[in-house]
């Protein structure tokens, strides 16, 4: 047997028949299957396992449960897909494991950043806040240097992306914690018929039964009984290695295991997560070899590792005496027990310790610990007698040589998940710990979070919680046992001992010292939440599991207040660090395709995202640049005929007796003269008079209207229409037909000749003039045909059921063959409409644009009784306009860099507007665009300057709109 191992323990987690060799800091070590990195290293006699965050102090095992961040490691630099910030306490060893300590320069043993501790006096609390904000010019330098030494693991930029699916799950009762209380809660709820899931972050069930008193037959017997009962219940699903990472609204709990995140929805939640053992605060309480008594017990009972050769036990409860007995049984020489209580231990555990020859020092604290002259660890401790007011008395030193200290001075509830679920904690003066107070509906607590410690009491408390949860779900249970009374105090009210000259750590993660708390308090940080942020206690990776309680105790004393008055800090998700890859998962952004998508794809369309849709941006042609393709598509529309898929347009149907009234109130226009068969451009505003949508309205019948809306805006616009219809009690039928209908726009001087071949509708100029609609058959499909002019040419918009979309598209392409028809994409359409001076909502308008600014005031009906936004537009019109949307052009001989959208219009160093749309090439040859500018610049012919990214000013000339066909003759052909 290796020298630091002890004989096999009942219920131990390691398999001594499976030795494993692994690497730490480049050296090989041996352990057993079931060992974690920390246990295997401690079992190999290694005492230096990590370096602290700020001062780079040597650190070893503290909690042996990852309640501290002492042992943070990362894969060695040569390992592929390097992981970092792995917690050594819970990291299983494997033959492949090859890790180094995080946060060192030059390795954990020779970490040169340890010089930081020599400067500790010059790094007082708030140092970084105070020192580095002036002069501002130098901050980038400070920041670079600090980032070099701050932080924990280094990210591997070459890591492969992983796809981690999420599991969605639900249950009646979710129990967290598989100790005595959690198991009995799960059994009780499952016996009542509930579907129970029990999650526990350890690899094996049992909680404290497994490590705290396994030498007692009662602990072993109770665990065996509980597991046997659980095993008989098919509706009790125990998941080991599964951590509750956070609780969210309505009992939605994130469960994290090795492989994945499970989104668990529970109807009732029972927290039986136990308690974190708390350290005492004294000088050098962070040295490797100073550890929690429970950590020593975990090392012995779970991993068969001997924690020390000769130790001192610091106790303030019977747990400490039990730990001393366990240590002795493991062959450790327990030199002394220092008991913080002047009265000592009232149970016969005290006599057993004395009988075993252990020196028991009642009313003594550990005052300081001394490291060895060479190497790392503990060489000896100094005990001091305590005064009646719990202060170490000078000149009462008791010096003891030893290589470790086991601390057993108290517990703090593992209450993070309960807090997050809405519970409040109160300080209980009898047990000297926080216990769960008010619980929200459906949330229950059991065991140590309630201040209940004795095994049979925990079983009663768990059974009670399980039955309460079942009753919450209206399941009947046996008679409810009474809540067990709280045990005698297991926690000392103030296990904190100042040492004038030396470091006493409150928070091991962040190297926050007791003196930092005092200094911060003196500077006025007397509120617990402010103190936390200023000193950063509790803000490290372990979120204050070992520091919050002591910090609260320290502050309460400084404030001369009680714990309840002082308050506690909130622990937020996640309970323990979670791999980012568990959270990232797969991307899920469903995209919509139009019915003609396959055709576009086959014809080399380059697709773009347009809201939730894929739309052809342009159709690629071999040997041609993107811009050449776009210009060619646009020119074809100007000279012949082109066709664009506009199925993404919002398409709404309104019918019914109140349809006309409804439309009058939704849109700015007046529709009294809109006869059946006619169409019109419409604008809609919100209540503040801001333009929110535009489109076409077509009157199909007496009280039947068909509306188009913007592709990206229709969902929100339709939603608002629905609400207005409710608020106004409108007798209408409102339908969003966007996905039901396909639509295309065929435009150009030859478009009529093409459409006429495939339709029974008379589309001659007399039969369907500009801005009219007809219904009929197009290529075998029931269709609505509208004369439109968005791109400024003779054109028809054809709307057909989605299932006919592809067929109609193909028929028109075929019919247009002799006219050299071709498709055009979104870019060509944007250019064509820009030449025509037509705006695109949310491109040429923004969250402050009212109709007058965007040049669509003509679409506002005069003397209307009411429309949404009307009252606000009246108010806006009383003020002077601040900007106008105008056209501009840039000289065709200009050869410099051209402006982009959102570049600013500058006049004498001041911003007067911005570019909203720009085309670097147009069918005219010169660049043109739309821009907001000051009203006094808006006259055609005015010269303005556009500031481009490099700061240069580009001259432009305001131009009357539209650029193309000012008489609007072409679209009316």
């Amino acid at each position, binding site marked *: 047997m290796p020298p630091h191992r002890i004989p096999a323990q009942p219920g131990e987690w390691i398999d001594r028949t499976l030795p494993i060799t692994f690497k730490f800091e480049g050296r090989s070590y041996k352990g057993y299957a079931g060992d974690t990195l920390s246990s295997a290293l401690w079992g190999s006699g290694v005492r230096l396992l990590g370096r602290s965050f700020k001062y780079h102090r040597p650190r070893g095992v503290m909690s042996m449960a990852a309640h501290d961040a002492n042992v943070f490691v990362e894969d060695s630099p040569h390992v592929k897909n390097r992981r970092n910030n792995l917690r050594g306490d819970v990291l299983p060893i494997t033959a492949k494991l090859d890790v180094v300590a995080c946060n060192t320069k030059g390795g954990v043993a020779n970490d040169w950043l340890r010089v930081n501790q020599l400067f500790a006096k010059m790094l007082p609390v708030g140092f970084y806040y105070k020192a580095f904000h002036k002069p501002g010019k130098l901050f980038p330098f400070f920041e670079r240097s600090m980032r070099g030494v701050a932080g924990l693991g280094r990210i591997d930029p070459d890591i492969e992306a992983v796809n981690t699916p999420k599991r969605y799950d639900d249950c009646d009762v979710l129990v967290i914690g598989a100790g005595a209380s959690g198991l009995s809660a799960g059994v009780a709820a499952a016996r009542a018929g509930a579907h129970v899931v029990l999650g526990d972050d350890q690899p094996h069930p049992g909680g404290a039964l497994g490590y705290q008193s396994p030498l007692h037959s009662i602990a072993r017997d109770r665990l065996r009984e509980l597991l046997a009962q659980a095993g008989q219940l098919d509706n009790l699903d125990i998941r080991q290695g599964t951590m509750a990472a956070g609780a*969210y609204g*309505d009992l939605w709990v994130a469960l994290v295991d090795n492989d994945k995140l499970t*989104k668990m929805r529970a109807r009732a939640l029972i927290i039986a997560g136990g308690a974190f053992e708390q350290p005492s605060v004294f000088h050098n309480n962070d040295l490797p070899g100073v550890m929690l008594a429970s950590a020593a017990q975990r090392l012995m009972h779970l991993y068969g590792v001997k924690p020390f050769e000769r130790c001192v036990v610091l106790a303030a409860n019977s747990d400490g005496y039990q730990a001393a007995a366990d240590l002795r049984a493991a062959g450790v020489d327990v030199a002394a027990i220092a008991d913080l209580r002047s009265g000592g231990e009232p149970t016969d555990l005290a006599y057993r310790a004395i009988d075993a020859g252990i020196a028991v020092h009642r009313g003594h604290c550990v005052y300081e610990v001394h490291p060895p002259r060479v190497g790392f660890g503990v060489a000896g401790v100094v005990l001091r007698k305590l005064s009646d007011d719990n202060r170490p008395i000078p000149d009462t030193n008791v010096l003891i040589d030893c290589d470790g200290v086991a601390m057993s001075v108290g517990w703090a509830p593992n209450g993070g998940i309960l807090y997050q679920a809405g519970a409040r904690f109160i300080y209980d003066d009898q047990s000297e710990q926080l216990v769960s107070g008010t619980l929200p509906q459906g949330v229950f607590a059991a065991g140590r979070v309630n201040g209940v410690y004795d095994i049979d009491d925990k079983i009663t408390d768990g059974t009670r919680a399980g039955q309460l949860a079942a009753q919450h779900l209206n399941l009947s249970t046996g008679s409810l046992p009474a809540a067990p009374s709280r045990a005698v105090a297991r926690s000392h009210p103030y296990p904190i001992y100042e040492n004038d000259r030396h470091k006493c750590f409150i928070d091991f993660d962040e190297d926050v010292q007791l003196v930092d708390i005092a200094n911060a308090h003196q500077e006025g940080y007397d509120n617990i939440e402010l103190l936390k942020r200023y000193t950063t206690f509790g803000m490290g990776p372990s979120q204050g599991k070992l520091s919050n309680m002591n910090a609260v105790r320290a502050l309460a004393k400084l404030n001369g207040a009680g714990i309840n008055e002082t308050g506690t800090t909130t622990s937020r998700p996640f309970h323990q660090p979670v791999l980012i890859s568990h959270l990232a998962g797969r991307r899920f952004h469903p995209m919509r395709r139009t019915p003609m998508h396959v055709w576009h794809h086959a014809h080399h369309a380059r697709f773009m995202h347009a809201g939730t849709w894929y739309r052809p941006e342009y159709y690629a042609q071999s040997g041609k640049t993107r811009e050449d393709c776009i210009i060619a598509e646009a020119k074809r529309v100007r000279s012949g005929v082109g066709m664009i898929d506009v199925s993404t347009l919002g398409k709404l149907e309104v019918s019914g007796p109140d349809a006309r009234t409804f439309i009058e109130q939704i849109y700015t226009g007046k529709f009294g003269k809109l006869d059946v068969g006619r169409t019109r451009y419409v604008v809609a505003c919100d*209540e503040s008079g801001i333009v929110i949508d535009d489109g076409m309205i077509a009157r199909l019948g007496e009280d039947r209207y068909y509306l188009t809306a913007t592709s990206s805006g229709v969902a929100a616009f339709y*939603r608002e229409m*629905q609400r207005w219809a409710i608020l106004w*009690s409108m007798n209408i039928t409102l339908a969003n037909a966007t996905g039901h209908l396909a639509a295309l726009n065929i435009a150009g001087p030859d478009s009529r000749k093409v459409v006429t071949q495939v339709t029974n509708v008379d589309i001659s100029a007399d039969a369907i003039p500009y801005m009219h609609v007809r219904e009929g058959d197009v290529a075998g499909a029931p269709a609505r045909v509208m004369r439109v002019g968005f791109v400024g040419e003779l054109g028809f918009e054809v709307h057909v059921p989605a299932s006919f979309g592809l067929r109609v598209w193909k028929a028109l392409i075929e019919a247009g063959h002799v006219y050299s028809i071709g498709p055009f994409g979104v870019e060509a359409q944007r250019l064509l409409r820009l030449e025509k001076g037509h705006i695109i909502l949310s491109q040429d308008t923004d969250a402050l644009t009212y109709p007058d600014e965007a040049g669509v005031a003509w679409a506002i009906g005069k003397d209307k009784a009411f429309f949404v936004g009307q009252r*606000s537009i009246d*108010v806006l019109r009383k003020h002077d306009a601040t900007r106008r949307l105008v056209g501009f052009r840039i000289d065709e001989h200009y050869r410099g860099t051209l402006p982009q959208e959102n570049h600013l219009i500058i006049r004498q160093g001041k911003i007067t507007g911005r570019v909203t749309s720009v085309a670097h090439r147009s069918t005219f040859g010169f660049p043109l665009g739309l821009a907001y500018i000051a009203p006094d610049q808006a006259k055609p012919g005015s010269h303005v300057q556009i500031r481009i990214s490099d700061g240069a000013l580009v001259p432009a000339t305001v131009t009357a709109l539209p650029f193309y066909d000012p008489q609007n003759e072409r679209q009316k052909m």
Partner: protein
Amino acid sequence: MKLLTCPINGSRPIQEFTYGGAVRDMPAPDAVNDEQWGDYVFHRNGYPEVKREWWYHTASGVWFIAERDVVNDVIVRTYLYSKGND
């Protein structure tokens, strides 16, 4: 993630819903001055209390009212809007 009970579709995860803002009564536009109108359009009461809010079940297109206690983050009740109950 919270649950919200749609009066038509029952209890659903809250991502299925769109928040529609506070329930407000529009004053008669002609009966108020510009300031009063601006107050209606722009100002909202952030006082911690039970709020009456519009919510929309996005998947099915149902608008309804939720009474939400923003102090405790508890949804007190939900129901369809009708002229009588506001």
